[in-house]
Each structure stands twice: as C-alpha cells, then as structure tokens.
C-alpha cells in the first residue's frame, strides 16, 4: 500500500528558509541544507523548496543550492519558484531535483505545463495552485504572484476549473494551497480539498492550515489527499515529524515509519 506522505515545505528567500503568516511578514527560520537534512532524518517523505520571491520579482535566481541539497539528502525533493522555461527546469533537474513545480508562470502560459511534460515526463511536473476562498461569493478562485503581497492578483480561474486544466496540460501532481488557511494553523480546508480530490486524478498534496497532528489525520482520512504539506508547525518545533507519523500509524493511516 502506498504510504501517505508528510512533506515539509521550506520557503526560500535570498538563500534562507523563511516563513510568513498568510504570505506576509517573512521571517528567517534557518539555513537550507541543515534544515533539509534534519527533516529527512526525522522521517519526512519528501521536501518542497519554494523560492517565493522569484516569480513575483521576475528575477533570475541562483539555484546552486539545489545541488548542495541533492548531495546531502536521500529523499525526493521538489523545487518551485520562478521557473518559466524548459531551460530553467532542465538546470534545476540537472542539479539533482526530482521535480519542478510551477505556479504563476503556468497561469500566464498554461502551455508551459505541456512543454515541461513533453521534455521531462509527467512525473517531474508539479503545479502549485494558490486558491482563495471568497466568503462573500462562496467561490474558490486562483491567485497569482502570491510570493509578494503587493504583486498578488486575482485570476479568471475558478479553482476546480484550473485543477482540470492543469491535468489536461499534463501535470503529474498538484499542490493545493488554501491561502486563507496558510500559516494560521486552524486545520486544512477539508471541504475544498474534498472537492478538488473529486476532480483530481493525479496525486494531490494539501497545503495550508496544519496546526495539530489531528489536522493531518483528518486531511488524509476525509479529503483523501496523497500528501500533506506544512511549514510553520515543523519549523517552530510544534510538531515533530517522527511523532506525527507514529500518531498517524496509530490512527490506521499508512505511513512510512523509520528507525
């Protein structure tokens, strides 16, 4: 049986790991490689590195840190942020990343997903979606350029339509980040994730809202996601990954337990 994955997300800005609340007020939480290695040793199943400044600033970012991670850690990892071309993706994969994740550039040009799929294969191509719940209209819509609050803007896409479109274009995995929940640790948006799950035939990673171990258990059992991503609960030491996996196993959820 395939294990449910626990995925710490390390938001990277100017070469450091940072975390903000609802995408604001980023604070430095540590160096990339030691933090990545620590999570791998604690039992993380995969790591995601989001270079959060890159897309919004339209910057070309030094990605040599990818190689330092690949040398050191022995679990898969994904790199996101500022990847707009197949050439940029090729460089990151050559440095040793297992997957690349695109978000804002896919909204600007959805065919980028298809081009990445054709060159690197579906399994390398992850699409990140920043979904916002508008309580007034009751709609879930997709936001773009969320790495920088001033640059963040709405798109024409309803979240479920975009989830279907990115699959048509050939993505191999979807990370759904519920912006309203990000960094506030009130639990994953099970309603929205369940709706997305129903139209998502590729692996689905839940992101945004993890605060307690019970939140992880419920997102696996109720929203049936394949993986759960979190940042602040791990960075702040609120939840230990090894203990989390023991807890999930005790709840009957298939997880990879390590020594």
């Amino acid at each position, binding site marked *: 049986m395939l294990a449910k994955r626990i995925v710490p997300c390390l938001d990277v800005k100017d070469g450091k790991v940072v975390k903000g609340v609802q995408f604001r007020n980023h604070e430095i939480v540590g160096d990339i490689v030691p933090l990545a290695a620590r999570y791998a040793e604690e039992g993380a199943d995969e790591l995601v590195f989001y270079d959060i400044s890159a897309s919004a600033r339209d910057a070309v970012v030094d990605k040599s840190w990818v190689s330092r991670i690949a040398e050191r850690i022995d679990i898969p990892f994904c790199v996101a942020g500022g990847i707009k071309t197949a050439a940029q993706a090729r460089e990151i994969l050559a440095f040793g990343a297992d997957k690349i994740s695109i978000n804002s550039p896919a909204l600007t040009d959805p065919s980028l997903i298809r081009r990445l799929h054709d*060159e690197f294969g579906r*399994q390398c191509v992850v699409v990140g979606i920043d979904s916002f719940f508008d309580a007034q209209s009751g709609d879930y819509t997709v936001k773009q350029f969320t790495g920088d609050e001033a640059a963040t803007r709405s798109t024409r896409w309803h979240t479920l339509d975009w989830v279907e479109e990115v699959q048509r274009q050939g993505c191999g995995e979807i990370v759904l980040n519920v912006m309203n929940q990000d960094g506030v640790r009130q639990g994953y948006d099970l309603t929205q994730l369940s709706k997305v799950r129903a139209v998502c035939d590729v692996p*689905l990673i839940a992101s945004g809202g993890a605060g307690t171990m019970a939140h992880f258990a419920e997102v696996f059992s109720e929203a049936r996601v394949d993986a759960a991503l979190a940042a602040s609960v791990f960075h702040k030491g609120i939840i230990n990954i090894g203990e989390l996996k023991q807890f999930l196993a005790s709840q009957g959820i298939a997880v*990879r337990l390590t*020594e």
Partner: protein
Amino acid sequence: MADEIQTPADVVIIDTGCANLSSVRFAFERLGARVEISLDEATLRAAPRLVLPGVGTAAAAMASLKARGLDKLIPTFTQPVLGVCLGMQLLMTSSKERGAENTDIPCLGIIPGEIRELRSNGLPLPHMGWNRLNTSAHPLFNGLSTADWVYFVHSFCAPESSYTIASCEYGEAFSAAVARGNFMGVQFHPEKSAAAGAKILKNFLGLTLADLPKCALQQGSVEPV
C-alpha cells in the same frame, strides 16, 4: 615521482544524455564509492559495475541511446548492470510509452517483457511515493524486509513475470525489480529511498557475477532486438 595512479571507479554511470544523473552519483558517493559518468566504450567495458539511469519517456530515452550507439553496446556488457526507473524499463523488450511515436518503442531487449501502463484501478497516477516490496532471495535485496519502504514515481510498469525479483502493489501487482543474469533493474529510485535504498545500492556495490543466481546469462548470448 611515481606515475600518476588513476583510481578506478567502483561504479560507472552510463551517460545516457538524459537529465539528472547527479542524484544517482550522489547516492553512491554517500556510500563512499568512487563514481564516474561516462560514454566512453573502453571505460564502460572496464567498469566493475554499471548503472543505466533514466528519466523522461521511453521514446526519448531510446532515441538518445541510439544516437550514442549505446543500444548496441549495452546488451554486450558482462559485468553487473543496474537499470534505475526508466533505465529498468529500457532493459525490457518494448514499451507502450510511445511519446509522439505511433508504434510501441523497441527497447534493449535484454530482459523479455513489455512495458505498459500501470492499471491503478482508480488510484491516482503516476504511482508516486513510498511503497513496500515483496522481495525474492536475489542478492540485491540482502538485509531488506517487507517492512522497508522505497520511493516510486512512474505511470508505466513491467508486469510480473519469471524475471521479477521483487514485486509491488498499486491497483495491481507489478515488477518492482527484474533480473536476468548480470542485468538487474529496479522500478523505484534507490537513490531517493533513504536507508532502504542505500542498503540496495550497497548490495549492488558488493555484487560480483558469482553472487548472481544460476540463471545467469552466458556471455554474449543476448541479441539486441
């Protein structure tokens, strides 16, 4: 001054021209192995053991092997050869992962069998993440147990056959590893499979032809398809 001594590599990774050879290199280096990446026939022939990596599609990878003459060369190797992920699939007879082609892709034809889509029975595809193995007594899996997890990412698979040396279950049972003589292939990524993967790579580094099961190929007995 003594002559400069060229340290021989413990393992040579076949430079297939596909992206991402570095993960496999780093994994062997973490085990203290000397690793070389090469396309040179003499270097490949002299290597004590070889790795055939692969990412992307079968169509693109076979085209790349052909462009480098590797499609003729690889089947003639007599030392232990380990195919990883797509590299395993390339060892087989053919693949239905056609890419832009209209017909099935002929592969290296070293291990009989056809690569086809994984029948996941409604589960998400690709099969992505950590899963468990049912291993045989093959020396590649010395010290592994059914409690160990390894990392998979794939949508196509080799069905189970008499060449299966480990199987896995995702909607259906399929070959997690195959072997014929000195050629072995693993569908999962040992280089990304934490301690369990390291154990498998370490087993591979310790393998000699004498360790391989008696069904070993006779030298040169395999004709490329």
